[in-house]
């Protein structure tokens, strides 16, 4: 362990304690809602980061996986009475199967082409969700009854959602951390950095990215399921629209792609800004908050290509085993 190991461990524990305990003292539902959104989007951005950051394959179709998760668990619950705790795994399974299919078809494509293909994939998913009315009710959407119950993953208070969201976030961070320290992670990065060299060293390129895609899409679906339980109402525009794919990438980029904590930091910084910008400017000058939002994105891309977390890490924790 590097010399700063102890210090880093303490910082991490302190950070975790803040996020675990702070919600207990926040009595304001609006702020708790902010926590939930940060956790959900942080986790989702982390899931996206596995294939797009570590794997270097920029996906603009993750809205499809998110939506599949939301729809699968909700439909299983509404139609078959299956608890979302089980339904979410069904969603994850479907999403990862689709992710693998998408990977098999599209991984041979390079950079822009892959991004465009996934964009089209996300669009097709959203068109299906709109038009397969027998299954999804189309644009009318599906409403979950507000009858709190642990088995239904519907909590009476926000705190339940906060901790469930935190749990998902921690799970994603942990999985990312483990990937970062595993064969898979090494291979993904090797592949991203130089494909020929990786192959010459025996990295089975196809499998590596497929595995990352499967994990990434399954996690996205799990988060989608949880999000549906939180919104209690889903329709294609709320869980599968293309802006979701753009937004999740945006959080990861602002935080720092290809790092364990970057995507979460991106959500942590950007969600409050979004919420407050919208609250302060949304009605007086409609559109201005989105202009600022787009401006921040471009500034970060120009001046901090490694993202905010990526840059801070290089400055303060260059060889930390914890802050990856």
């Amino acid at each position: 362990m590097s010399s700063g190991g102890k210090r880093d461990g303490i910082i991490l524990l302190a950070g975790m304690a803040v996020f675990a305990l702070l919600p207990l003292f926040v009595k304001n539902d609006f702020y708790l809602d902010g926590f939930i959104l940060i956790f959900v989007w942080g986790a989702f951005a982390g899931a996206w980061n596995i294939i797009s950051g570590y794997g270097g394959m920029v996906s603009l179709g993750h809205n499809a996986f998110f939506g599949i998760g939301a729809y699968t668990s909700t439909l299983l619950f509404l139609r078959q009475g299956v608890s979302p705790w089980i339904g979410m795994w069904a969603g994850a399974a479907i999403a990862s199967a689709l992710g693998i299919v998408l990977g098999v078809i599209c991984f041979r494509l390079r950079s822009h082409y892959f991004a465009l293909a996934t964009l089209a994939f996300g669009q097709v998913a959203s068109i299906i969700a709109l038009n397969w009315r027998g299954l999804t009710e189309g644009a009318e959407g599906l409403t979950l009854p507000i009858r709190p119950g642990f088995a239904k993953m519907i909590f009476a208070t926000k705190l339940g959602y906060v901790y469930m969201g935190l749990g998902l976030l921690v799970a994603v961070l942990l999985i990312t951390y483990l990937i970062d320290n595993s064969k898979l992670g090494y291979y993904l990065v090797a592949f991203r950095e130089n494909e020929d060299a990786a192959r010459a060293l025996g990295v089975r390129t196809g499998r590596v990215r497929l595995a990352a895609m499967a994990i990434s899409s399954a996690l996205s679906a799990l988060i989608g399921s949880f999000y549906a339980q939180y919104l209690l109402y889903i329709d294609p525009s709320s869980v599968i629209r293309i802006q979701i794919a753009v937004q999740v990438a945006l959080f990861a980029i602002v935080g720092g792609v290809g790092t364990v904590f970057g995507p979460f930091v991106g959500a942590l910084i950007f969600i409050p800004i979004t919420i407050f910008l919208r609250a302060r400017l949304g009605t007086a000058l409609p559109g201005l908050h989105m202009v600022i939002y787009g401006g921040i994105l471009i500034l970060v891309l120009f001046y901090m290509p490694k993202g905010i977390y990526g840059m801070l890490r290089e400055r303060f924790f260059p060889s930390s085993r914890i802050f990856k």
Partner: protein
Amino acid sequence: MSSTLVVQLVISGILLGGIYALSSIGLTLIFGVMKIVNFAHGEFLMLAMYVSFWLFHWAHLDPYLSMLISVPLFFIIGILTYKVFIKKTIGAPILSQIFVTVGLSIIIENLALLFWSADFRTVSLSYLSRPIILGPFSGLGLEEIIVNKARLIAFILGISLSIAFYLFMRFSYLGKVIRATSQDRTTALLMGINIDRVYTISFAMGILLVGIAGALMIPIYTVHPFVGFEFVLIMFVVVVLGGMGSIVGAVVAGLFIGVVEVFSGFFIGPESKQAVYFLVFIAVLVLKPSGLFGEKGEEELERIEAIGE
């Protein structure tokens, strides 16, 4: 099913395809020369439609004449956009390239919302309101065929513009310089070509082309801040199918997608026509990454360069 109907479907499809081709040439030029996918291209189209709309609204300027103003205006907008935003992304990692233009599209879209509200605005020209009726051609067993004037004008001007542009790229010295730069920028630099200037001009021309498209489209479509998004995905499809960077390819692919869209709207159902062309799009990307109509694919060129290294 009558043959009249088939002919009518084909004509509608080709006219629609003309619009798609027209709006996509600028995008394919920008990609071909600097290998950047401009996700904000739809928003520039939206701006162009607004410019023609406001000129019509305030100065009663015919949209077709408003091109005289749009052309220089969008050329300048193109130059400024290149200098401020695009230049920094040349050679940057793929993520920055994509998301700088995504950020730009968010900004433009919402500036339009801020200044012009979400209202839908249209231009109606009385001389376009009656369609052209062809036929009936009793000899061919065809009844009347109906052709929309505004779409026909957009189609004719669009196709002529594409041809003119193609000839420009093929035969003018500047066109040759642009093509040379797109094939090998390092060597172009060694020939004394100022790459930055070529990029500036190419980007500005791409934006200028979409400026013209906006003027031709305002008599057909309503304009609102989100109209760009309705077109940009189709533009991507057209540009990829045409073989990214190929002008001829974009025109052929535009027509192809127009016909596919109208036919699938008729035979499969209007709700799924988008899904149809997205699936065609993915299939082509995977099976023939150089595009259906590309002469030589982008991917192939990259490989040539790699071997040359």
